[in-house]
């Protein structure tokens, strides 16, 4: 039985004459409308949150400007912005898909939002789809802003935009899986602390602003397997080096995406 099959006056939107205010007229909205509404709400909640904006916009923008203008880290030959911009884009993806999503979802769970929506007509898969769309909308805004700043700093990007899009999407999938895994298994406060700590560690060790070649060789091979290193190295190979699709990095990101999303799907607790 579909929800609308029980609707006493389908498509009317009104109610029969003489009926009271609360006379039942149950039925779910079309799923596309639900997803759209949920995406809009999730995005508004994200953009309204000051801490989230600090993480997703202000920190990446500041790092980009600071490290491009001041020669703090040896970024190798060429303009430092050409090295930094791809790393900062990777950081932006991580800040939204992983850190921001983990913290927001952790608190949604804690405040019973996921539970309450679970009793609404919105199916769980549609809620997750809306969360993903909201992450992608935020990333588009971040990438647009950071690209403008980088271009103003003299950035000259190369490469195939489709390869960049593929890397960003795979990176988003990998980080979303890890973020949701954390949010769905830990307490909200633990998620808050852990997500920020991981953000900081990956910022330093993931080839975002410090080239991974600066680390000892044994450490390097491990760092290379991190999703952030794969994303920043991959983006750098395309945008700085003009390479085609960096298949090694793609493979690392795909593996993280499968592992993270699979574990999240299995272990996520809604209450």
């Amino acid at each position, binding site marked *: 039985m579909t929800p609308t099959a029980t609707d006493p006056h389908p498509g009317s939107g009104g109610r029969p004459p003489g009926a*009271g205010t*609360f006379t039942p*007229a149950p039925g779910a909205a079309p799923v596309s409308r639900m997803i759209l*509404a949920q995406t809009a709400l999730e995005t508004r909640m994200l953009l309204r949150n000051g801490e989230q904006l600090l993480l997703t916009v202000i920190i990446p923008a500041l790092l980009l400007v600071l490290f491009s203008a001041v020669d703090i880290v040896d970024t190798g030959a060429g303009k430092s912005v050409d090295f930094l911009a791809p790393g900062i884009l990777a950081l932006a993806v991580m800040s939204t898909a992983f850190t921001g999503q983990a913290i927001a979802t952790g*608190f949604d769970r804690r405040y019973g*939002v996921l*539970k309450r929506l679970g009793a609404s007509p919105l199916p769980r898969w549609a809620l997750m789809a809306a969360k993903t769309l909201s992450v992608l909308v935020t990333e588009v805004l971040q990438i647009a802003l950071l690209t403008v700043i980088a271009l103003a700093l003299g950035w000259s990007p190369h490469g195939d935009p489709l390869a960049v899009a593929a890397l960003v999407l795979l990176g988003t999938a990998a980080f979303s899986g890890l973020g949701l895994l954390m949010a769905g298994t830990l307490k909200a406060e633990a998620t808050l602390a852990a997500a920020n700590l991981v953000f900081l560690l990956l910022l330093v060790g993931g080839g975002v602003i410090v080239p991974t070649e600066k680390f000892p060789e044994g450490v390097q091979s491990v760092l290379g397997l991190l999703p952030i290193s794969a994303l920043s190295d991959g983006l750098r190979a395309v945008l700085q080096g003009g390479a085609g699709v960096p298949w090694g990095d793609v493979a690392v990101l795909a593996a993280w995406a499968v592992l993270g999303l699979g574990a999240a799907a299995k272990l996520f607790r809604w209450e």
Partner: protein
Amino acid sequence: MSNDPAVEIRGLVKRYGPKTAVDGLDLTVRKGSVTAVLGPNGAGKTTTVETCEGYRRPDAGTVRVLGLDPVAEAGALRPRIGVMLQSGGVYSGARAVEMLRHMAKLYAHPLDVDALVERLGLGGCGRTAYRRLSGGQQQRLALAMAVVGRPELVFLDEPTAGLDPQARRATWELVRELRADGVCVVLTTHHMDEAEQLADEVAIIDAGRVIAHGSPEQLCRGGAENTLRFTGRPALDLGSLLKALPDGTEAAEPTAGVYRVTGDVDPQLLATVASWCAQHGVMPSSLSVERHTLEDVFLELTGKELRA
């Protein structure tokens, strides 16, 4: 519309680890009725309601809501029910009207949000984030979210907990209106007066079982006998009074000159006692009827105070 019950629970068992929260519970809720699930904290009220809402999977027994299995047929059931959780359920940064408007968008024929906002006095919440609303405002928003989709059946988990008397009465008024418009309401409470005021049917729950079920009047009459007390001169002939009274009624003189009649105290019994007094030249200096409340019924059934 069919006469199938809105909710039918048979032998429900739900355990959390070693603790049995619900222990063989049976409950039937008639369509169009207001049913109060009454019991002390920890009696299993919330677990029972949350099983009906599809949040919990029964360890044993069956639950049917509007004829559907709440877990297996959740997709068909959810658009038809409204849910008010005991607390939370709203984004901490969302505004009251924003959240309500969002919930409305998830349904095919929602109520007019502006009218509902006005009705529940949520207009004054303005741009305040949910986490900064007062407890009463949060409760009213949760209630509004439960009814905005024009459901057939509404579950309200302690809808008036923490409300001031005025807000409580406003909530009662809304429940009465829902009933008048044909919405079936299941609410949990540990307030006797709430159950007496609102409910067509009351199910008293203790330790995970329904220990009494019926209308408030039936429960007050059936569970505990009522008492009629009068005072007169000492050592009246109670034997002749007992002969005049229906079977099963008792009469005693616990202290000299104070008489107690216990049984099914109705107008006929009162008339019988009065005419017996007239025949014996007794002028009672006081006469009172003590009606048992649900509170007494509960105490009698469980030996516990309701709010313990």
